[in-house]
């Protein structure tokens, strides 16, 4: 059952004092468009209706009892004859809760299509991804889905659905604004609030009444386009979302997509063990790149030889722009081990402070020798990246090509063969106490 939530009344007569309803019409909604934002609990609803206006002053009444509509967002716009139809003011009478009156001056008489728009809360959408690699972990099928949530308990039909990707700035929460005027709805988190949210969703989806059903049985296309800094996913045609269901639609797919595997050792960032990353780009070369990838959870599976699958891990990714890299952290790998052992230490160039004819050490240099070892127990070669912070006044020397990542961090990358161990020595000179003149790392 579809219900109409918003009373739309046309009152004709005096601007200020018309107390009687001269004419009440409930114009049909011709179309409803829902623009759902994923960064905030916010949906922009636009409905189009045909209203019959008289020449002169018209009063249009709009009410939204028991909804989470932000009253300050409700707007009226004539879609035709805009230069002949002027909104004189919007009046929110205190005695009538969740109710407003538009005073409209019209130079024309007759039926006019108008647009009523407002913000409401209660509808959400999310993105999720599935990555399924082949057994050798050389390529993957990568699929992204959008999912629109509607827990209304009723069936909804024929709303045009647009989903906005991006983080918008709101200075006040819509649900809070909805409470500010009129009868306060229940507090968030309560049963009543959730029921109200459900009802808001139900009503928003229920706007398009008695529209013809889509005949198409194939998966709908998601049309993607950029708007300013944001991206808009428009679900093709109109959408019906059934009672108590959420609807998940495929938004993107890349089959047999190539990707790289890199092991990263960054104690300060990922902890004491190397972590495994799957890396690729959101670009055409990877059969992606026609839209950014919205925030969402990526679940990574691997096909195994027995037609089954293994779950490799999951990660919540943040927005990935077009052509930007995608990095999925699969966590530590027991088959790749990194060790750094100190193999020697010597101190020299002591500096002494003299006090009461006795000398006290207050500066010295220390040369330490290290051996870094990477053991790869996997049956294929790996690429290994190391970032290591050496604080203080440090000179670093190594037998592998090393560069400075920043003023205190070294960066090196090398490959380790299948089932091989790679070890390399390095020497670190650190100046302590009075000998420390700098706070930086130099590579020799």
């Amino acid at each position: 059952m579809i219900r109409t939530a918003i009373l739309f009344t046309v009152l004709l007569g005096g601007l200020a004092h018309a107390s009687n309803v001269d004419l009440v019409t409930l114009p049909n909604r011709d179309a409803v468009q829902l623009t759902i934002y994923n960064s905030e609990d916010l949906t922009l609803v636009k409905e189009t209706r045909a209203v019959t206006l008289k020449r002169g002053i018209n009063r249009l009444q709009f009410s939204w009892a028991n909804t989470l509509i932000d009253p300050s967002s409700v707007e009226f716009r004539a879609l035709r004859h805009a230069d002949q139809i002027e909104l004189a003011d919007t009046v929110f009478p205190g005695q009538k809760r969740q109710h407003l009156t538009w005073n409209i001056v019209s130079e024309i008489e007759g039926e006019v299509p108008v647009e009523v728009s407002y913000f409401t809360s209660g509808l959400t959408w999310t993105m999720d991804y599935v990555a399924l690699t082949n057994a050798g972990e050389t390529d993957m099928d990568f699929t992204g889905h959008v999912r629109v949530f509607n827990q209304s308990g009723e069936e909804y039909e024929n709303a045009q659905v647009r989903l906005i990707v991006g983080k918008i700035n709101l200075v006040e929460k819509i649900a809070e604004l909805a409470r500010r005027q009129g009868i306060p709805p229940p507090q968030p988190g309560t049963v009543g609030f959730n029921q109200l949210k459900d009802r808001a969703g139900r009503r928003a989806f229920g706007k398009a009444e008695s529209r013809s059903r889509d005949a198409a049985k194939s998966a709908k296309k998601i049309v993607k386009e950029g708007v300013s800094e944001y991206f808009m996913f428009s679900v093709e045609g109109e959408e019906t979302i059934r009672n108590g269901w959420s609807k998940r639609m495929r938004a993107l797919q890349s089959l047999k997509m190539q990707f790289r595997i890199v092991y990263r050792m960054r104690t300060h960032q990922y902890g004491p063990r190397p972590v495994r990353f799957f890396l690729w780009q959101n670009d055409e070369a990877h059969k992606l790149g026609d839209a950014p990838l919205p925030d969402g959870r990526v679940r990574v599976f691997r096909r195994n030889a027995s037609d089954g699958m293994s779950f490799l891990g999951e990660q919540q990714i943040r927005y990935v722009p077009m052509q930007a890299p995608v990095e999925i952290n699969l966590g530590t790998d027991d088959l790749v081990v990194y060790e750094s052992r100190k193999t020697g230490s010597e101190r020299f160039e002591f500096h002494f402070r003299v006090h009461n004819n006795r000398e006290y050490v207050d500066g010295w240099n220390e040369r330490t020798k290290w051996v870094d070892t990477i053991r790869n127990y996997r049956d294929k070669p790996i690429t290994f990246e190391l970032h290591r912070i050496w604080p203080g006044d440090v000179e670093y020397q190594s037998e592998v090509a090393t560069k400075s990542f920043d003023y205190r961090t070294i960066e090196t990358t090398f490959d380790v063969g299948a089932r091989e161990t790679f070890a390399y020595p390095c020497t670190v000179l650190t100046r302590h106490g009075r000998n420390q003149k700098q706070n930086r790392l130099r590579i020799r």
Partner: protein
Amino acid sequence: MSIRRLGILAAAALLAVAPSSFARIKMTALPKRERVEIQLDNGRYTLVEEERIVPLLASNNKRGNNRIDFSWSNTQIDKDSIQFRPLAIREGDTFRPLKEGEVTVINVAYPPNENALVWEVHSSKACALKARVSYLVSNLSRSFAYRALADKDETFLVLKKYLQLRNYSGEEFGEAGVWAGFGPKFTKQVDQQTDIKMLLERFAKVPIRKTYTFDWYAHGRLNNDKPFASRVLMHYRLRNDKRHGLGKFPLQPGKARIFIQDGRGGEAFLGEDWAKLTPIDGDMRLFLGDARDVVCTRKIKSNQRHAIRGNLFDQEIRITFECENFKDKEVTLDIIEQLNRLAQQYAAPAQGDVEWELGPETSEAIKVTYERGRAMPLLSIDLPARPTGKDAKVEKQTFVFHIVLKNLWK
């Protein structure tokens, strides 16, 4: 609901014999309001001016003067602000200005423990006086709101400015003139507990500049995965002057909701911000949110101390900015570098504003300006649009900001 009366003691008592603490008898002639003006030009106080026709008797020694009683309840009127101003007297069907000595306000008395006052008015003859009563009232307030619609290319705004009148004063003003201190004067039905939203001004084509700003010390690192990146904030910047289609009056603070044309004849909501007071010729900045397609990371690439004498030294620092623009159009990234905080973190307290000079290795592509002061240079960098094509890849652009912080000690 308030009850407020403007009463005329028609048979005026002789002041000379009137006891000071008599029980006040109000004979309420209740002259109706002829006109009400609500002046909202002061942001903190609202002035209500109402005009009434008050019948006066001729004052003489026997009757004394006219006493005009004004009382109110459930309305927060600032008692000390109430003024009574005689304007004109009726002659035939019209009013003419007062002549000197015709009507004089002698004094005003405040009865104890009442929201009331009494004016004693001398009139040289019986007449119908047009008088204006004005007072400051609470809970009758105004606010401003903006609706901005950007074109798809984000070069212009259609800016609408709204006046929102909120009447929770306890008083029904009926049909009243409403003026915000600028813009059009409205005539509106101002009922009790009513909000009215009115379009004050519509600016059809306001040029805007979209800015992208990176400020490491203001926002810190983005997250654990990107420890060297920080937020890039987007703003629309518009100038309140005639050249930019504005400049008629200051733009008052208020919530601005920003929409953009979506290219299909519709609109999308971009976000909202509190617009700050913007004087004429001033700049308004509207925060849109974080840019996620413009990425900037900042690293201290080198940090070298040069001793001068004793504990006095210079600190030479190279900061590298790695920037990527994933957008399909060129942008200018403004980087704010807070050098006092940089000195504090890597060298020594700046002892006031840090003394510094630009090093020769600073990238030529960086344009340095000082609109925020010498110790907070603004580094502007143009970033090209992302390349197109199958194998196109956004290259990281690396820029070096090479500086020497001078004469520090600790």
